[in-house]
């Protein structure tokens, strides 16, 4: 009867043992979180994985409850959202949690990515972990794009029109692709309905890739601010209770900031124009996507010239998707043997410049290309800043990263994490090492 069921090794009462011997969830949780050795020197930039998990769950939860009240038809979508805001009990809260949740989701994911770039978390052996992450980013962008269409405001409609029209840039089959995407001859009811279906589906796909992402992480173990591998148990601490406590605290800080926005500035990150019902006959004065898409929008619009046989429109599309796809190959573009920017003085500078560049691109994306940056200074338009920003972005990844790895003089690495921690921040102890692995 129970002879071939392995006795559970988990602690805990009879019920726990009964479940665990049939499906070892508790043993798994104990191993992967109760005992899992994590480097002892995480800083607060390492909180964002937990924060992102929370945000994903929040988005799914609020999304499901919103979907109970929303109608995905062009004649009723806008009004159904207003009904949620006005008539559904706590509907306004559900809506603002979801819309601002998306914004905070992206704030967190960008911080998480830049953390990875700074500390070399994408390097061997974590390349696949990193690639899963970029996949999650792409899925998030698709989900957010489609979600924004659902309220069927002016920006919903026109943003959808502009971005779906981009696919007509694809040679030969471009127009067929766009018609296929639309399910018609323009963004219309068919488009709205399928976007609703896919917007409901993709978060669960994201969930699946997140699971892969975490499994991959647990195979290699986490990186840490020093970028050197733990040498033994003295360099690590069990995830629980140390990082469960730290993550809980960090999460509370995050949620407090989130709540302040949701309750007191719920439309700060939004576009007022989207409170006007979609009107296919009237284009808004400026079509802008949500802020988290602005850098890509800037890159897209910065390619306003033809390159051989590639026309400007296609060039823009290639550059825009390229800016994300280039992230996939960062583990191979960066040739440095040293992981963390703490020991890479040159790379550190270029990291901050990259960050400023991305902020600049975001700023550019929010303005019409031919508008003057400073009133009265006619020779500097936003498109010019866009050119510079885009050029620098690709220069950083395609040229700088490979070269820096070869020519940068890195600082000597500490011998171990514990040693470095004991020396309270003095990181140049022991002999100078230039390789990731110490013998």
């Amino acid at each position, binding site marked *: 009867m129970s002879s071939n069921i392995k006795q559970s090794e988990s602690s805990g009462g009879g019920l726990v043992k009964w479940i665990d011997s049939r499906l070892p969830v508790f043993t798994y949780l104990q191993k992967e979180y109760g005992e899992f050795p994590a480097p002892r020197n995480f800083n607060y930039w390492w909180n964002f994985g937990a924060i992102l998990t929370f945000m994903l769950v929040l988005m799914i939860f609020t999304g499901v409850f919103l979907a109970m*009240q929303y109608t995905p038809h062009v004649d009723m979508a806008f009004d159904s959202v207003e009904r949620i805001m*006005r008539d559904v009990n706590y509907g306004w809260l559900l809506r603002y949690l979801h819309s601002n949740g998306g914004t905070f989701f992206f704030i967190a994911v960008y911080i998480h990515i830049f953390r990875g770039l700074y500390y070399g978390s994408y390097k061997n052996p974590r390349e696949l972990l990193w690639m899963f992450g970029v996949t999650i980013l792409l899925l998030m962008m698709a989900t957010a794009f489609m979600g924004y269409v659902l309220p069927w405001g002016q920006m919903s409609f026109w943003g959808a029109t502009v971005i779906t029209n981009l696919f007509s840039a694809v040679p030969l089959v471009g127009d067929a692709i766009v018609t296929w995407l639309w399910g018609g001859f323009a963004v219309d009811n068919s488009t709205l309905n399928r976007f609703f279906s896919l917007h409901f589906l993709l978060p669960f796909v994201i969930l699946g890739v997140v699971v892969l992402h975490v499994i991959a992480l647990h195979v290699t173990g986490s990186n840490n601010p020093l970028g050197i591998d733990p040498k033994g148990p003295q360099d690590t601490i069990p995830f629980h*209770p140390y990082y469960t406590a730290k993550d809980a605290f960090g999460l509370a800080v995050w949620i407090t900031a989130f709540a302040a926005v949701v309750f007191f500035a719920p439309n700060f990150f939004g576009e007022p124009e989207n409170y006007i019902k979609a009107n296919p006959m009237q284009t808004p004065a400026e079509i802008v996507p949500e802020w988290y898409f602005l850098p890509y929008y800037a890159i897209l619009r910065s390619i306003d010239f033809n390159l051989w046989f590639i026309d400007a429109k296609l060039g823009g599309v290639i550059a825009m998707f390229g800016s994300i796809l280039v992230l996939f190959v960062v583990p191979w573009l960066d040739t440095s043997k040293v992981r963390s920017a703490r020991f890479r003085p040159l790379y550190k500078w270029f990291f901050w410049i990259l960050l400023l560049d991305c902020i600049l691109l975001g700023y550019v994306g929010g303005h019409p290309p031919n508008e003057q940056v400073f009133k009265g200074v006619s020779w500097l338009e936003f498109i010019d800043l866009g050119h510079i920003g885009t050029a620098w972005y690709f220069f950083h990844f395609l040229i700088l990263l490979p070269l820096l790895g070869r020519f940068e003089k890195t600082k000597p690495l500490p011998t171990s994490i514990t040693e470095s921690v004991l020396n309270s921040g003095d990181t140049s102890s022991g002999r100078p090492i230039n390789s990731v692995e110490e013998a």
Partner: protein
Amino acid sequence: MADHVNDTDEKPESRRDFLYLTTGGVAAVGGALALWPFIYSMNPSADVLALASTEVDLSPVEVGQSITVMWRGKPVFIRRRTEDEIKLASETPSDLPDPQKDSDRVVNPEWLVVVGVCTHLGCVPLGQGSTEPRGEWNGWFCPCHGSHYDISGRIRKGPAPDNLMVPEYKFLDESTIKIG
């Protein structure tokens, strides 16, 4: 859990436990409070509640005529009863499956207002139209499983356990009632 230094003094341990307990408690309360709006959002929304009452103009209804109105998504039978029907209704036999006096079921004996949903399994009984079968007591007849209702909407024969439900209503004036 990680090893901790053995405390010879009880206080720091119990203070620590108190901290953990308090924090856990506060977090749990916060979680429950956070969950509440989601659950409550599924309750009827304001626009649904606004249609929770219906006003009906009775002036076009002739003596002996029946009309059906919608209320909260369900049909309501309104029958303007004749003198004979009122007299019949006032008789309260002793073997009623759900004993109830007609006077307890109407505000004004001339008007019978009942929810037109069979108390057995929810079908809409026949009998509103003059050509429809009205059952052996000339009230309503449910075709699904054969329940017979009398001219006061009381169950007489068949599987239905209760009389047709009388909704809350009142006369706003002689010819208008407000249901709900």
